């Protein structure tokens, strides 16, 4: 049954308009990944208002292309500049930049490009195999289970990532509070609107996302703009010698399994995936002393893990409606704007959309490989964009996106206020991801909570009445307890991960 679904998907994805969307997506994504200061989540948020005019399938094909393209673009920057823009490409800088400095930039870019291709292929295959399975199991889960899973997402995203839990939870609760603004969907009661009519509809997710990501980032960079341009390592057309391939093919194939797994669970994301893939390669390697000095194995595995983690993230988002990364959260918001609810029923209700999207991921990966190998020197030139123009452009398109939501100049002021919050969060080390997950998932979580209590006539024990919900709460409790126990046991403080690696 799945096979025919996927075949239909390919038939649909190979039509000219969908191919065009896929191509635009991967090109735009790569450019966005290469450019500093702008990430895939911001890009999709900026494009949201524009895509209302499109049919949803085309829009999501483009979004997915941006996601995968940005993964590759981010590592290009890391390799050639040694200052990773996204946490996911930190590992690419560790081995890729030394390679580039030794004059092996072309090989490093090829290793990354092929790694992303292999990782993406394995990851999307995993998505094809696993997603319908999860969906069929998850069809029976009810409101209490959903509420439990959402609480897990909040806690995991907040508690596992980032250095400080207090700051993580502060960001989460701020996001949840922003999500409150507007008329309560069940009772129609205004909340946090302060009598301002424009606030009755709530603050649009697009404005929150664009404000936190684009305006917050632009203001933050403006406050600390590097005045001396950084040195970009010049690079030619990527290629690999037979010896390079001999060393890289196993890491390419190992990375995706780590990446897909960590990408699909909350708090995994590409950051954890690439880190675990790197550590694994270092453990397995016979010449460990080469690591940190341009070991191709240490670049191949994290790169393939990164793209595979994107597939894992998509699997969780599509089957459970649960975003584990910022871009997945924005894509979830996009689905909701189109009136489509991702979740176990998505595969039954929108089979054409889902399978076309998945098929187009395969096509997008092929396009990425075909475009990125020859275009790499051109992407490298993007790094020389004058910074005033780059950040002026980001602000410009942020305003276009925010204005397009409802055609109201007041929204630009709201955008600036949320941008200021984003600025302060960056200044004081409050992570942005929990906040955006809170804004997007919060209203849904409240709805599930109240629906569960409604069905049970207000009996609170309904929240822990199913095996799944009990299991999830146990996991949440463990997430709280384990780090505390570990901290107690560890008498001597262990060096920070990053310190150890750099």
């Amino acid at each position: 049954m799945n096979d025919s679904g996927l075949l239909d998907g390919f038939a649909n994805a190979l039509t000219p308009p969908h191919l065009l969307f896929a191509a635009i997506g991967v090109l735009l994504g790569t450019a966005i990944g290469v450019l500093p200061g702008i990430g895939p989540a911001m890009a999709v948020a900026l494009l949201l208002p524009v895509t209302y005019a499109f049919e949803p399938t085309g829009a999501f094909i483009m979004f997915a292309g941006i996601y995968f393209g940005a993964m590759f673009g981010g590592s290009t920057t890391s390799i050639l500049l040694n200052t990773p823009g996204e946490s996911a490409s930190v590992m690419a800088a560790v081995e890729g930049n030394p390679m580039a400095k030794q004059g092996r930039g072309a090989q490093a870019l090829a290793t990354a490009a092929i790694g992303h291709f292999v990782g993406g292929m394995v990851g999307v295959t995993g998505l094809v195999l696993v997603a319908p399975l999860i969906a069929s199991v998850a069809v029976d889960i009810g409101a209490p289970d959903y509420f439990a899973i959402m609480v897990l997402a909040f806690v995991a995203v907040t508690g596992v990532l980032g250095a400080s839990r207090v700051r993580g939870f502060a960001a989460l609760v701020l996001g949840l509070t922003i999500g409150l603004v507007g008329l309560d969907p069940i009772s129609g009661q205004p909340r946090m609107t302060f009598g301002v009519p424009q606030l009755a509809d709530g603050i649009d997710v697009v404005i929150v996302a664009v404000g936190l990501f684009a305006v917050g980032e632009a203001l933050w960079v403006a406050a600390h703009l590097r005045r001396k341009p950084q040195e970009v390592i010049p690079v030619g057309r990527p290629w690999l010698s037979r010896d390079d391939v001999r060393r890289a093919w196993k890491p390419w194939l190992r990375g995706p399994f780590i990446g897909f797994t960590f990408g699909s669970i909350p708090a995994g994301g590409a950051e954890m995936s690439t880190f675990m893939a790197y550590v694994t390669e270092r453990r397995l390697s016979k010449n460990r002393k080469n690591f940190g000095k341009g070991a191709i194995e240490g670049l191949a595995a994290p790169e393939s893990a990164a793209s595979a983690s994107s597939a894992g993230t998509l699997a969780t988002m599509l089957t459970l409606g649960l975003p584990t990364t910022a871009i997945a959260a924005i894509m979830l918001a996009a689905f909701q704007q189109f009136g489509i609810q991702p979740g176990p029923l998505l595969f039954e209700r929108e089979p054409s959309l889902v399978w076309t999207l998945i098929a187009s991921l395969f096509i997008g990966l092929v396009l990425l490989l075909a475009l990125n190998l020859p275009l790499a020197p051109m992407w490298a030139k993007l790094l020389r964009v004058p910074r005033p123009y780059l950040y002026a452009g980001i602000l410009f398109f942020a305003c276009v996106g925010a204005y397009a939501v409802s055609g109201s100049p007041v929204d630009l002021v709201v955008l600036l206020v949320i941008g200021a919050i984003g600025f302060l969060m960056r200044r004081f080390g409050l992570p942005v991801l929990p906040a955006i997950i809170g804004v997007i998932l919060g209203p849904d979580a409240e709805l599930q909570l109240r629906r569960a209590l409604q069905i049970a006539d207000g009996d609170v024990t309904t929240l822990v009445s199913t095996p799944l919900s009990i299991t999830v709460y146990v996991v949440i409790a463990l997430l709280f307890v384990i780090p505390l126990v570990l901290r107690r046991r560890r008498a001597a403080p262990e060096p920070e991960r990053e310190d150890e690696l750099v």
Partner: protein
Amino acid sequence: MTTGTEETTRSWWSEHAELGVAALLGAVGVLVAVDTVAEGTLTAGSDSDPIGPGVVPLVLSAALLVLAALLTLDVLRGGHGEAEAGEDVDLDTPMDLRTVGMLAGVLIATAALIPVLGWPIAGTVLFAGAAYALGSRRLEIDLAVAATVSLVTWVVFDGLLGVDLPGGPLMGMLG
């Protein structure tokens, strides 16, 4: 590049600027509680909606107050959040709040100009103004780039993509 003297003459308050974040969290917490009580949201529940629209805001309000307290404790004990790094971010320089203020001003001006002058002109002001604030000093080139970006965006978004952006009097004259 921070100099040693700047480091030592920093006052206690600027060392503990994060207390402001805690204060902000607390203030939002109080605001949510006051709003919930004042609007009568708490009593708006019904048989079909047992906890009503007021309980979740109250829980969040309590959480905000607790987090504000915890953060205060953490800061007083010497904890501090790490400022975010990035490709174009140089954390060794002191914060350039003048640029940030200018950018905020440009955004406000844009919001005010859109209804009067339309997107092509307001967008040009936005792009050129932001580029100037960020240190670009090639005025003619900046203006040309800004006008091109703004006009092309308007044509593509308003004309091709069906996103409604006002053309303003200038575009009105052209057609």
